[in-house]
């Protein structure tokens, strides 16, 4: 029996998932190059186990990104400590996370800033919910938390985003809030 060819049909799946995985990986990586390394390792590992790219197993892919990213970060922190001690530390990169049309660039920057102000746990849940499209149960399985914890983090995150973005409502082009009776 010839082994299944894992080099076929991965492109479409990769094209669709890679930007979302990269966004998720950048939660932990200090720069986009490291985040790409994480995505590369995670996708290759996942595809070997799911050569068809079964949608049902996509949460596992995010969990793989998370595991690898945490490993990389642990190693980075050790390196950074060493480099800081020797005074050759490099600043982390602040490349944009979103790729909006030209007219939406400012909005994207505002949203990005608002996202950055969230706690890492809240940001992770929002990223997995909004861009990865996972359910709360899937996010809970990915992060190792309970569904209730995840749902409540999401709620707090939305509240925080509301608070930050409300004064910018007009700039963001959102409909005005209904007047209170």
């Amino acid at each position, binding site marked *: *029996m*010839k*082994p299944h*060819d*894992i*080099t076929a049909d*991965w*492109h479409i799946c*990769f*094209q669709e998932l*890679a*930007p*979302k995985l*990269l*966004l998720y990986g950048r939660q932990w990586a200090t720069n*986009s190059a490291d985040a*790409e390394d994480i*995505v*590369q390792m995670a*996708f*290759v*590992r996942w*595809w*070997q*186990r799911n050569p068809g790219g079964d949608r049902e197993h996509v949460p596992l892919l995010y969990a793989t990104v998370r595991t690898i990213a945490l490993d990389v970060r642990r*190693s980075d922190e*050790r*390196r950074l400590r*060493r480099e800081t001690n020797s005074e050759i530390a490099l600043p982390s990169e602040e*490349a*944009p*996370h*979103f*790729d*909006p049309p030209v007219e*939406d660039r400012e*909005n*994207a920057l505002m*949203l990005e800033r608002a996202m950055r102000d969230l706690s890492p746990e809240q940001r992770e849940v*929002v990223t997995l919910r*909004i*861009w990865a499209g996972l359910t709360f149960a899937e996010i809970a399985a990915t992060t190792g938390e309970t569904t209730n914890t995840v749902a409540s983090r999401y709620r707090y995150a*939305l509240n925080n*985003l*509301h608070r930050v*973005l*409300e004064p910018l*409502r007009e700039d*963001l082009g*959102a*409909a005005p*809030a209904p007047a209170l009776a």
Partner: protein
Amino acid sequence: MNDTELENLLRSMTPVAPSPELAGRVQHDLGLVQSFREATPEAALVKKKPAQWLANIVWAGLGAAAAVVVMGAVQSQGRTNSGLVSVASISPAATAVPAAAVMPVSSTREWVEVEDMGISFATPGSPSRQMKVISVERHQWIDPRDGAEYTVEVPKQESLALPVKYQ
């Protein structure tokens, strides 16, 4: 702005696409795995996997054996070599683990901490700076048949004696 509007606003932001090279790197990795799979005898591919508990015991045993070998080597080195310890020595752990169907991925050594212990004038006329180096050796193997990855981390502590010259 209600929750739905906010969610829609967030969804409307497209994450940045990865660099075009990333797809090439994934292609390369998958090609490597595929070629290894094809080169592996069919029997090895269809062979029934041993029970998970057995695999766990085997890997735990290999890890312990590697640790014992490394500790023994470090101790014997410490007894016989009081001067310069070679940093580029090949760890016995690197050769202890590989099995037939497991492919080595990487073997790295990371310096975790370097401590300056000061200058020693133990040998007249040739002072040396004593450095304590704490490092971690990390060896990785992958089983391309199921993507399982194995990592062994071996912490080490060594002393370096760097010759010092005064003008």
